């Protein structure tokens, strides 16, 4: 986000090595001009490169003006008059002006530039011919205007747009030192020794001492009802279900509390609530953003991964590694692939102009680098895109090393089989049954062999074909424009055997006899087709946009084909009588109208007859072209063509003798069985068998069984990977390449100003004791599709011993602590750098992180630790004495009650009114009135649900570590006037059957106090009078429920 700055070199120069400690660098861009002037005065007469100064307020503007001046007026002079002797071919007097650095370094005569007093600069004196040697050497003095430009340029800080000689550039890069690594968050975990090693440690031990020192006394434990409600809302985002609370209150076992907490942790709702919180951090959404905001319909699998991961207590190190490189680390594990949705969830402007291609890709890499580093490490590495980080020890080249890690990573879609074990379990009995049926058919066929033999030789053998006016046509050739492949079937039909392309065109050539007047196209079902066909679209439909026939005499195959005008079309079924009628297959419009067969025709054989009126004069070759462009994948899956001379033949299916059978019968009749070829015998045998009722029955049973073969649950899943076809979008039409194999270090983040190629690596500040990225390298196997750079990153991220796993753990436990206390031990969950907060209780943070790692990175373990602590279980009561000593409650002397999140509010409303639909997983919804939990709202960036936004839902564009919690009028309007709020109130009233006790129990999990009961009763009486309706009492109770559901008690974590 810093790339809009003016294109100048860093100013002022920094001397990184002068930093001795790990304090934030004092380079605050928001600083007054007066302060700057004061500093300049204090520093006189020190010349420029000596000291890193605060940036002046108008720094950017000065640089811009200076650079413009340099480009227009200075650079040409330097190139033409000076460079040859000073930094070009020669460097006279040890003075080079090839780059800003060398200019500032001065030469044998000392500094050339005096920043404190620009007019006194040696460079100017030489150019003005005030001092010798006059410059430019042996040339006339430069014009006054040029000299003035030089002075102005020096006043502006001598900016260069780029060095005059590329190799001369030696930027004063930031160096990262062990002093930088000593900053608290980068240090290894350190836990003070346990003063009481006898008993297990808990968070309270760490708080007790500080509280005592501050004279602050924690509250006593809250009552059990409050605790149960608090725990349920905190862990699952829902109030305790009726009965659950009562069971807990009645549980007198000493370990009732841990048992209750464990039951919440085991609830499926736990994973849903936790997933939703991580979705904020992961800036997860299901659309691309920008102007088209295209949907990403297979992105929801990432959300489902999160739910499963939290419910399964997936260790946090694996949770992390899979989100960064699941496709490389566990390619066979669907959850690991789903996890990479983390990287692909960012926004992307699908409409791009050529001028934007490269910057769009660098923006996309920035999103991956920025989100990964903020989410897992709490580091704002993205700030180092344009220059070395202003506050943290992160040089720009560290940023580009991370960007290079993602260089070839793209958003793509893969098909994943869900629940394969379920599929296998279903397939096994199906296969057994298929074997049985096939065996039964085979046995029956064998038993019929003698009868077939007798038939063949019988002089008056009975016919085996039904009479038909249709002659089934063998294709002379059959081609498909977009790749469909066909397999011929016994009945003369052609079965398409691969998935349907988006658009298709079949061309068939057939030979027909003289006298033919019509052509029949059968579109036939088959067990392999979607919904058995006859079409190949997912709904079993097809749409024949047009059918065109050309003809030439068979004796003159070289003749120019002439169009055969089709005059009539009839069909067994048509989807409607308009744009999807059979007639529309021979209209002039192949694109938007055509013959289709849904609305009653799916799963059944269909046929259409096209006639041309005048019988053909000679035997002819017909070329039939069929186009399927009306709708995606709408081509037929099994086709058969026939011809007839009967102009009135109705469009039936299944009849007609296929060519091979006709010729075999002919041969049998003319020459007897001994003249048959083996193929002909086989064709006859197949046809003869079909006349046997027993065979037909067994064959039908087998075919029917085959049509219900269990299919694997295959679903497209949006992932991030390498070497797969990228997810297509708008800009593909202009040739957007999706990625560039190499990432360059960019000057000022500008893709037009590339520096060296960056190689993958990690931030140096998190590489201790001489470690190098190679130590974690995962070499790609022979022929690997991916680079394994991300796998390498993942190993380092999760390595607590030598990598950055210690920081990963700190950031993770802090997020969980924040979830329970409203504020993290580090109050800036996404910033553990210099600009961020320092931990309020560093030892506690490190102890929690250590515990976390020691217990297999289990988040459930952390939740247990926290929910068992006194700090969490105490009452929320306010005490002025404590508040005076610790107004921010940093010492946790009270439980910080606070408003629930948008999701918890809406989900609680649904739950207490009995309307909640608990269906987990799967595609989400944009319908604001849906009744599933709020994490099943489809996150479409341009259509965020109003109810969520009103309660501080984030934008889902950048990582959010902590949502604001506001109290504004639109929230009040939601409770007062929205149809949903009214619906919840009415449902709650209805399920309470007029009982105030029930209303309170459902809504607040308690009984009304006597004065509340009195107030409510009085309200109901007077409110009933407002409603002039037979349902007045019901409506009054709904009014009461609506108020209760809008109350602070309902909206706040107790």
């Amino acid at each position, binding site marked *: *986000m810093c790339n*809009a700055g003016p294109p100048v070199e860093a100013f002022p120069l920094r001397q990184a090595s002068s930093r001795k400690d790990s304090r934030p660098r004092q380079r605050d*861009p*928001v600083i007054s001009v007066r302060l700057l002037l004061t500093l300049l005065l204090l520093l006189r007469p020190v010349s420029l490169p000596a000291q890193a100064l605060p940036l002046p307020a*108008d720094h*950017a*503007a000065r640089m*811009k003006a200076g650079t413009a001046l340099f480009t227009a007026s200075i650079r040409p002079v330097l190139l033409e008059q000076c460079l040859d002797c000073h930094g070009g071919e020669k460097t006279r007097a040890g003075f080079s002006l090839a780059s800003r650095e060398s200019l500032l370094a001065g030469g044998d005569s000392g500094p050339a530039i005096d920043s404190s007093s620009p007019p006194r600069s040696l460079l100017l004196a030489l150019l003005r011919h005030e001092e010798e040697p006059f410059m430019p050497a042996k040339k006339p003095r430069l014009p006054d205007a040029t000299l003035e430009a030089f002075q102005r340029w020096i006043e502006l800080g001598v900016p260069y747009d780029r060095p005059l000689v590329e190799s001369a550039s030696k930027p004063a890069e930031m160096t990262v030192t062990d002093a930088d690594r000593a900053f608290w968050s980068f240090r290894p975990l350190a836990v003070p020794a346990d003063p009481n090693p006898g008993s297990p440690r808990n968070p309270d031990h760490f708080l007790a001492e500080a509280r005592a020192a501050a004279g602050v006394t924690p509250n006593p434990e809250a009552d059990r009802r409050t605790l149960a409600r608090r725990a349920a809302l905190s862990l699952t985002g829902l109030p305790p279900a009726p009965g659950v609370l009562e069971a807990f209150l009645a549980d007198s076992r000493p370990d009732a509390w841990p048992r209750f907490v464990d039951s919440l942790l085991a609830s499926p709702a736990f994973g849903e609530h936790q997933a939703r919180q991580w979705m904020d951090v992961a800036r997860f959404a299901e659309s691309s*953003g920008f102007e088209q905001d295209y949907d990403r319909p297979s992105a929801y699998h990432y959300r489902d991964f999160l739910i499963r991961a939290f419910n399964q207590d997936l260790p946090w190190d694996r949770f992390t590694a899979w989100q960064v490189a699941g496709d490389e680390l566990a390619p066979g594990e669907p959850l690991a692939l789903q996890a990479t949705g983390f990287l692909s969830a960012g*926004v992307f*402007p699908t409409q791009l*102009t050529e*001028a934007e291609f490269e910057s769009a890709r660098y923006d996309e890499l920035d999103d991956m680098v920025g989100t990964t580093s*903020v989410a897992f490490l709490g580091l*704002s590495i*993205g700030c180092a895109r344009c220059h070395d980080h202003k*506050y943290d020890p992160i040089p720009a080249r560290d940023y580009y090393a991370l960007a290079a890690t993602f260089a070839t990573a793209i958003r793509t879609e893969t098909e994943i089989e869900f629940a394969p074990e379920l599929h296998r379990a279903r397939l096994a009995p199906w296969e057994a049954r298929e074997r049985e049926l096939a065996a039964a058919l085979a046995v029956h066929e064998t038993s019929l062999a003698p009868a077939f033999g007798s038939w063949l030789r019988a002089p008056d053998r009975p016919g085996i074909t039904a009479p038909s006016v249709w002659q089934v046509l063998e294709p002379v050739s059959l081609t498909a424009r977009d790749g469909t492949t066909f397999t011929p079937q016994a009945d003369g039909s052609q079965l398409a055997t691969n998935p349907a392309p988006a658009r298709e065109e079949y061309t068939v050539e057939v030979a027909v006899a003289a006298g033919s007047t019509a052509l029949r196209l059968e579109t036939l079902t088959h067990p392999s087709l979607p919904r058995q066909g006859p079409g190949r679209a997912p709904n079993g439909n097809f749409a024949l946009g047009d059918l065109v026939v050309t003809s030439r005499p068979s004796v003159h195959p070289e003749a120019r084909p002439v169009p055969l005008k089709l005059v009539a079309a009839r069909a067994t079924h048509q989807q409607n009588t308009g744009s999807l009628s059979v007639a529309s297959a021979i209209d002039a419009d192949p694109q938007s109208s055509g013959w289709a067969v849904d609305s009653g025709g799916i799963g059944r054989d269909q046929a259409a007859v096209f006639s041309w009126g005048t019988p053909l004069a000679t035997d002819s070759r017909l070329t039939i072209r069929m186009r399927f462009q009306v709708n995606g994948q709408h081509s037929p899956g099994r086709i058969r063509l026939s011809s007839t001379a009967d102009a009135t033949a109705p469009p039936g299916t299944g009849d007609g003798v296929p060519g091979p059978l006709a010729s075999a019968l002919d041969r049998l009749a003319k020459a007897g069985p001994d003249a048959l070829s083996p193929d002909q015998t086989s064709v006859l045998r197949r046809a003869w068998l079909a006349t046997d009722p027993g065979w037909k029955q067994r064959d039908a049973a087998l075919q029917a069984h085959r049509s219900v073969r269990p299919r694997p649950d295959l679903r497209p899943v949006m992932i991030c990977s390498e070497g797969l076809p990228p997810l297509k979008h708008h800009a593909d039409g202009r040739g957007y390449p999706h990625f560039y194999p190499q990432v360059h270090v960019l000057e000022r983040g500008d893709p037009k100003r590339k520096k060296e190629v960056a190689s993958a690596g990690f931030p140096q500040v998190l590489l201790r004791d001489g470690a190098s990225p190679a130590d974690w390298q995962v070499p790609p196997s022979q022929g690997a599709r991916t680079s394994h750079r991300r796998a390498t990153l993942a190993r380092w991220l999760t390595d607590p011993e030598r990598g950055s796993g210690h920081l990963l753990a700190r950031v993770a436990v802090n997020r969980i602590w924040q979830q329970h206390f409203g*504020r993290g031990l580090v*109050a*800036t969950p*996404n*910033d553990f750098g210099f*600009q961020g*907060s320092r931990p309020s209780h560093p030892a506690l943070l490190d102890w929690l992180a250590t515990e976390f790692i020691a217990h297999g990175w289990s988040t459930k373990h952390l939740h247990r630790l926290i929910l068992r602590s006194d700090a969490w279980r105490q009452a*929320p*009561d*306010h005490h*002025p004495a404590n*508040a005076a000593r610790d107004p*921010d409650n940093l010492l946790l002397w009270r439980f910080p009650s606070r*408003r629930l999140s948008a999701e918890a509010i809406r989900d609680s409303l649904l739950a207490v009114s009995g309307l909640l639909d608990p269906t987990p997983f799967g595609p989400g919804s944009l319908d604001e009135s849906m009744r599933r939990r709020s994490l099943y709202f489809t996150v479409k960036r*341009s259509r965020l649900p109003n109810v969520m*936004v009103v309660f*501080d839902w984030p*934008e889902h564009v*950048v990582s959010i*570590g*902590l*949502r*604001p*919690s*506001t*109290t*504004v009028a639109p*929230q*009040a*309007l*939601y409770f*007062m*006037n929205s*149809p949903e709020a009214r619906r919840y109130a009415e449902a709650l009233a209805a399920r309470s059957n007029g009982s105030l006790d029930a209303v309170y129990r459902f809504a607040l999990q308690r009984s009304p106090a006597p004065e*509340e009961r009195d*107030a409510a009763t009085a*309200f109901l009486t*007077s409110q009933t009078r*407002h*409603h002039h309706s037979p349902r007045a009492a019901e409506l009054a109770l709904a009014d009461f429920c609506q*108020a209760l559901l*809008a*109350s602070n008690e309902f909206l706040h974590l107790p």
Partner: protein
Amino acid sequence: MMPSPPSRRALLHRAGAGAGLLGLATLFQDQHLLAAPDPLAPRQPHLPARAKRVIWIFINGGPSQVDTWDHKPALARHDGQELAGFDKFTGFFANAVGGVMKSPFEFRPRGRCGKMVSEIFPHLGEHVDKMAFIHSGHTESNNHSPALFAMNCGLPRMGLPCAGSWITYGLGSESRDLPAFVVMSDPLDRGLPKGNASNWSAGFLPGVYQGTWLKPKGAPIDNLLPPPNLPPAAQRDQLDLLARLNRSHRDAHPGDPDLDARIQSYELAYRMQATAPETLDLSRESEATKRLYGLDQPHCRHFATQCLTARRLVERGVRFVQIYSGGMENQRSWDGHSDIKGNHSQFAGETDQPVAALLQDLHQRGLLEDTLVLWCGEFGRLPVAQKGAKPGRDHNPHCFTAWLAGGGIKGGVSHGQSDELGHKAAVDKVTVHDLHATVLHLLGLDHEKLTYVYNGRRFRLTDVAGHVIRPILA
């Protein structure tokens, strides 16, 4: 028992600033901006303000500078000639680049200042002495949504707060019962500006600072009207009951100002129910006023309605109003890729009289003194033709014209120049950041001090740039 005053940290969080500001107390220099529990409470700006509120007429799709306010006689002289050295990737359609094209419109001097104005603005031409023109505007992207984001939010990216949000964050709201920041989009089914609601998004600022979009159809604000089966007296009694429940809950839980804030929020919402419909009800205006805006003219009635609504909003203390002329792209907005003459005639016709009336009406009521009116789009258009049956003009990020009028603006001046053909900004170039810095300055906000810390970085509307355009200040 009196609750102790909430700590600054608690205040910051409640102000919705928690994500950005917690732990940064020592670095944050503008504490007064957030030292109130109500995130929308009015706040004193850094500097003396010349304007208190803004009405931004957004000329959506990119108006052509050379056909509106930037008169270029040279275009006629070079009409039809190829523009030497022209980069065909400047606009959106690299394969439809034609020759230089003169403006299809006549220009004539208007006002005391004699500003040359296109014939498509007969009414607005009357007000040039109130306007300061910027002819040297330029931006980064040649593509609608990034350019819209830049114009609204500072950079051609998603996820940043827009100017209206920054201003509301900086100044709060003068109105207690209307939204502080209101956006109106095209009501004629031509769609939203590209990038949709991201154009009035609060980005990483708390959501309370995002623009309230007045829906062009149906109830303009969500949940503004009570449910049909709840009579007014019944709702009043219901709210009284709720207040009673909340008060006794608060008394049992002292020390949490949030609980009080919610009690107040219901009363505020109750008042909004009455105020907002009254504000949006134009029937209360005189016939003369309605005619002035053009409410009786079918071709501009929709925009007249929005401009008059804008006046009623600012009159009642709304801080920032943005009205989009046209929706989406091509013929649905000022995006005149084809038939620049027809396109600009149409959209100028829709807006000319209403915007002129707005200026006049604000002036008559003394509101123009401290109301800033801004007219600009996301970029300009090219001096060369986009080829077609009726030629148009393609996108031009290198040059656009904007004008400002009202609070703190010197009228009748023109700042900056484009080159001879109006192709590129040439003299005193103005960036989008400069424009934003100037708007903030007029409102009394120092664009370098209006900051928000998010994920480790201090953000500004003007990123790391921006200069107040002083020559146009009164």
